[in-house]
């Protein structure tokens, strides 16, 4: 089912999404990948505040290629989410409502998604040129020294994603592969 939602993500929208829904996101989302997650985990350990408020926000696991002149961003597709599995449960418990990436998640992340009524979305891996067209602005807001791995605030318009794990724990990767398996 096609759905149009806004970011930050409301409790109602998050709860209403189901694994397999094709979703277009409009609003503000944040990028963070390996190195930024490691830094955020260190900040939490030290008891310092995070550079972004997790509450109702969506993190996009993505490190863009450099932007050409006059463009907000370069190629901007998702990276593999499982590398962030170590860090994601803590962020979900702090109010993170959505994650956009690609690939499987750990049981600990799935449990944290259900516990916090959050959503894991997949963007299509390797569609970075197309996805960049749905990003209208990009601004580094933390960890600038990390280059492509810095935390960016993105404005997105009808950014296309698919619900993989919904707030009830349904998992599209498992359901869909079974449907087409002919072994």
């Amino acid at each position: 089912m096609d759905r149009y939602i806004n970011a930050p993500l409301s409790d109602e929208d998050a709860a209403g999404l189901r694994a397999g829904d094709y979703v277009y996101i409009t609003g503000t989302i944040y990028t963070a990948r390996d190195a930024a997650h490691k830094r955020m985990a260190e900040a939490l350990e030290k008891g310092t505040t995070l550079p972004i408020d997790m509450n109702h926000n969506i993190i996009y696991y993505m490190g863009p290629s450099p932007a050409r002149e006059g463009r907000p961003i370069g190629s901007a597709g998702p990276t593999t989410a499982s590398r962030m599995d170590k860090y994601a449960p803590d962020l979900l418990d702090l109010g993170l409502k959505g994650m956009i990436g690609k690939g499987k998640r750990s049981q600990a992340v799935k449990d944290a998604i259900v516990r916090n009524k959050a959503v894991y979305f997949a963007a299509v891996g390797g569609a970075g040129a197309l996805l960049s067209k749905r990003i209208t602005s990009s601004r580094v807001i933390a960890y600038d020294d990390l280059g492509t791995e810095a935390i960016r605030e993105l404005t997105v318009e009808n950014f296309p994603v698919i619900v993989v794990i919904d707030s009830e724990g349904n998992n599209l990767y498992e359901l869909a592969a079974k449907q087409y398996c002919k072994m």
Partner: protein
Amino acid sequence: MRTIQTTDITENIKQMCIEANHYLSDDMKQVFNKAVDNEESPLGRQVLEQLKENLEIASSDMIPICQDTGMAVIFMNVGQEVHFEGGSITDAVNEGVRQGYTEGYLRKSVVKDPIIRENTKDNTPAVIHYDIVPGDKVEITVAPKGFGSENMSRIFMLKPADGIEGVKEAILTAVKDAGPNACPPMVVGVGIGGTFEKCAQLAKKALTRDLNCKSDIPYVNDLEEEMLDKINRLGIGPGGLGGTQTALAVNIETYPTHIAGLPVAVNICCHVNRHAHRVI
């Protein structure tokens, strides 16, 4: 003896890094179009259509096909009658990568040390495989490799008694474990034989082989076709979201091996199987 200036190598490598990251080769486009026609899942078809549109945007707007513009893997087949003039050939290759990734707006994804992890900021060094071959030409293949799929690659040191059935099981295990992480529909490069490192290199080389060129060893050719069919029955589908097009191709390369061993390497590549090829 033919003299080639190392600056010529630099210029070619630079252009090839930019070319490979914005345009897929014709053989890749052909298998891609076939996958769109054959996909049974509506969501799978939607994903493939999105990927086709992505390729068009990449070439028309000069935006890299994928933001992971890879670590530059370069095969250099150097004719033994070639003399390089102008300094170190390895430095010249790396200079080409540096210029290509900087001037081409490509992502710098290489860290200087695997543990300290400081970005080199110019995507060097490349991984360079040299081979000395007859003749006076230099054949260069630039294959930028993304790590979503590289991380899902595997090597299996099988026993001779495992035989061809063991090889089939190893390939299927690697693909199943990779699942959605490797950005399917994938291209599967397989190396069979050699030693531990030779086998891994065969698998990498297999990914750069033109998909229209079949193996000239009959059983290998049969194995490629059988494994493509088996992989596409797994149900993983485009983006891992379910479907019948999990792999676009399986390319297998073999090499003699030891009486006690049967190494199998499975190097998985996503649908952005990039490689630029030139002969100088």
